């Protein structure tokens, strides 16, 4: 129980009025930057980072991590209210969160998102507290074949478990894979599909695409349907919170499943992004009422948010132990920690105990304080939807444009965003799902690199994907999920025959 003693020590460092005040300030600032669509977590945290330079190390780290938690909480707000995910892992939250907001249940969706984020992070922090040293060595087992297997699993689960027509999922995914290939190819060091343009050199930025595909296309659709002059009715009462919490125990299986998926993918270096998608898909798979997903089902908010935050939190572990950040925001946080001499590495947990346990203790406190704080803001944010769409749409478009520009300071990205807005609009019209495209855009490149590195290492032998227990079981699971619809039909027939 050394961990418990160290954790208590961590708390003793934190429980002063000054630290608690800093925690609150950090959370408020974090939520603020998380909410501004486009400014988003990474940019916001980068701007706020220098604030901590004049503080003592412990305060600085508490402040930094609270900005991080705040940004994570804030990211869900824009996904639900405006269909604009701020980070890769908020994408799946839009699937049911946005329809809920459209039905005037924004407060419910927000409460569900915040509560499940809290549960996800709590499970992950418990995991970090008690299993930290062992998990680092688990992450080390991932070489190129293992990485590829995990990415393959994500893709396959999408095709196999998706509700949409398979060929449409594949079309969308293929387009995403194609777009993820634009820019510099790491393995050959050559440029691909840039057509001599300096703007395409950077590749297609994921967030730019997402802002266009989800945010802009939604506005186009709404405009076509007629500019509603009235806002949505949004009941703004804290009683909603109790209502959602009473429903919570019914979804214990979803919450548990998503937490496990989140933690597992979070400690897989670079796997955090896939977690929310997998959490969502599996919840849908195991649900008795598959059809209601994507139409504003509260479970469709619980599942991805729990998984996203479990993975976002447990992703801090490989970041601290191995120096591989799981997201843009985590990367900035890593930079901030380095300023304080907290160089990620295996010795961090040994040599900087007080830092690390202070950070872990601040995860507990920051999450509790953060939850209370964001829940109290639910009425405020839900009220935003009362503003008539005609008034708020231009503001959304402008902040989308600013956001797309701010990611890389490139005017080109604004045009790219508009282009993706049109693509998103057309796809929605002809009923092609957007999620596979976004998933392929963010993971395609990595999957390709992992595959090619595996092939270089094994001299072209595909058996490398079954070369040990870990990679073999993940690859097999991926293939089973891919052919799940066929397999389940075969099972049914087998069951039917003897009867």
């Amino acid at each position, binding site marked *: 129980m050394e961990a418990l003693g160290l954790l208590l020590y961590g708390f003793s460092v934190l429980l002063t009025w000054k630290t608690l005040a800093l925690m609150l300030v950090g959370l408020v600032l974090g939520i603020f930057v998380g909410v501004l669509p486009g400014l988003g977590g990474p940019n916001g945290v980068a701007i706020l980072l220098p604030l901590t330079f004049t503080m003592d190390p412990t305060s600085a780290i508490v402040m930094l991590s609270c900005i991080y938690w705040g940004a994570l909480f804030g990211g869900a707000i824009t996904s639900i209210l405006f269909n604009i995910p701020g980070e890769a892992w908020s994408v799946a939250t839009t699937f049911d969160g946005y329809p809920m907001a459209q039905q005037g249940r924004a407060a419910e969706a927000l409460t569900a998102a915040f509560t499940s984020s809290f549960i996800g992070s709590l499970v992950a922090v418990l995991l970090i507290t008690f299993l930290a040293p062992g998990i680092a060595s688990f992450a080390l087992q991932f070489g190129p074949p293992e990485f590829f297997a995990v990415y393959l699993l994500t893709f396959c689960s999408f095709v196999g478990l998706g509700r949409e027509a398979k060929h449409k999922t594949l079309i969308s995914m293929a387009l995403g894979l194609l777009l993820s290939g634009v820019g510099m190819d790491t393995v050959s060091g*050559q440029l691909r599909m840039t057509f001599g343009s300096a703007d395409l*050199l950077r*590749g297609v930025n994921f967030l730019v695409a997402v802002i266009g595909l989800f945010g802009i296309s939604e506005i186009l659709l709404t405009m076509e349907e007629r500019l509603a002059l009235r806002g949505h009715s949004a009941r703004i009462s804290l009683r909603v919170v109790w209502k959602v919490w009473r429903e919570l125990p019914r979804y214990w299986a979803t919450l548990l499943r998503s937490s496990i998926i989140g933690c597992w993918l979070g400690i897989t270096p670079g796997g955090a992004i896939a977690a929310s998608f997998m959490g969502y898909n599996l919840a849908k798979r195991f649900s008795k009422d598959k059809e209601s997903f994507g139409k504003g089902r509260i479970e469709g908010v619980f599942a991805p948010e729990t998984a996203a935050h479990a993975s976002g939190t447990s992703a801090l572990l490989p970041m601290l132990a191995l120096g*591989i950040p799981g997201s843009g925001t985590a990367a900035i946080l890593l930079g901030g920690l*380095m300023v304080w001499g907290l160089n990620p590495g295996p*010795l961090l947990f040994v040599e900087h105990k007080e830092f690390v346990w202070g950070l872990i203790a601040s995860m507990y406190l920051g999450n509790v304080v953060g939850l209370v704080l964001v829940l109290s803001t639910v009425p405020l944010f839900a009220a935003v939807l009362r503003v008539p769409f005609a008034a708020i749409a231009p503001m959304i478009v402008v902040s989308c444009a600013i956001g797309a520009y701010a990611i890389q300071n490139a005017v080109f990205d604004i045009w790219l965003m508009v282009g993706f807005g049109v693509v998103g609009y057309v796809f929605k019209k002809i009923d092609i799902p957007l999620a596979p495209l976004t998933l392929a855009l963010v993971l395609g490149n990595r999957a390709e690199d992992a595959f090619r590195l595996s092939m270089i290492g094994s001299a072209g032998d595909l058996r490398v994907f079954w070369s040990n227990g870990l990679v073999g079981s993940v690859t097999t699971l991926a293939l089973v999920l891919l052919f799940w619809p066929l397999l389940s039909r075969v099972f049914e027939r087998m069951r039917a025959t003897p009867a």
Partner: protein
Amino acid sequence: MQAEQSARVISARRHAAADQPAEQAAERRAGARRSAPQGVPRAAFGLELCHSVLNRWPARLAAMLMATVLSGAALAWEPSKPVEIVVAAGAGGASDQMARMMQAAIQKNSLMKQPVVVSLKGAASGAEALMYMKSDPADAHRALIAYSLIYMLPLSAKIPFNWRELTPVSVVALDQLVLWVNAKQPYESVKAFADAARSSATPFKMGGTGSRREDHVLTAFLEKKTGARFAYLPYKSGGEAATQLVGDHIQANVNNPSENLEVWRAGQVRPLCVFDKERIAYKSAVTATQSWNDIPTCREQGVDVQYLMLRALFLPGKVGPDTTAFYVDLFHRVTQTAEYKDYMEKQALKPIYLTGNDMLKFLQDDEALNRDLMTEAGFVAK
């Protein structure tokens, strides 16, 4: 010569600082100093300032005049908004760590009034940062931490870039490269390692950052000098290559000291040799038993491959001489801070300080050297 020059600039700046209230007042009256038209001679502009001050604060006139006469620098360029340090690599890499050190050194020692922001532009193997520096040649509020990519990317990937399109500020360090193996492997010397690689049925896997870059070039030359064959695996960052080595997914890597420092201290990797003509100078213990100085050079071990990577600062191409002077002074003062010295020793960087013509000469020679290496390795795109 260089030291003298910057010492002069420093004293001038101190003087300016002593007279801050007057300066700020003048700023309010005449607009920000940087709004001075580039073509107007500095003295004339100073006079104009004095005039505007004259109307309002006659009592301050003497002080203002003193400042103006004693030093042109009092009216020299200064940032009017946060300064961006552009990193041409991902989070946690060697360039990022250097940027963070500079950010902290500047802010903790109050070397500049405006804050410093680090922006990571590592997409397209760092080409994103190079294009970003070119995109606004007159922006005086961004500085690039450059390394060998400024020579190699244009050759290997035909990126339309030449370092002559930027304004060189100073070379602040040289980074070493070291051959590392997993500590569980038996090899204690380059020779033993090379012998094992030569006799292995499947080629040894060598990890590195990027394709057709310094790590790849070194691998190619190791092959040439030892006769061993390696399968080179290009990763996105040195940190990734370090983790992969610890996880035993590759047999060796050629990381910078900073990239493998933590795993070396944890006893998970072993350095075999450093690619320089002399050993690293730092003699204080890094691990329980070894210091940087204990790592032999590859040449000592009979494998004569050498490579040093520059760490230099550049500004966009069309900034004024005042701006350049400001940054030369700023980064020179950074090199005087405790943070910088501590950083250099901890990351085992080789000290160097070059600016002005010395730097130009260095860049030209270094570029020629890199081009030769790339050509010989066959990595130049046709």
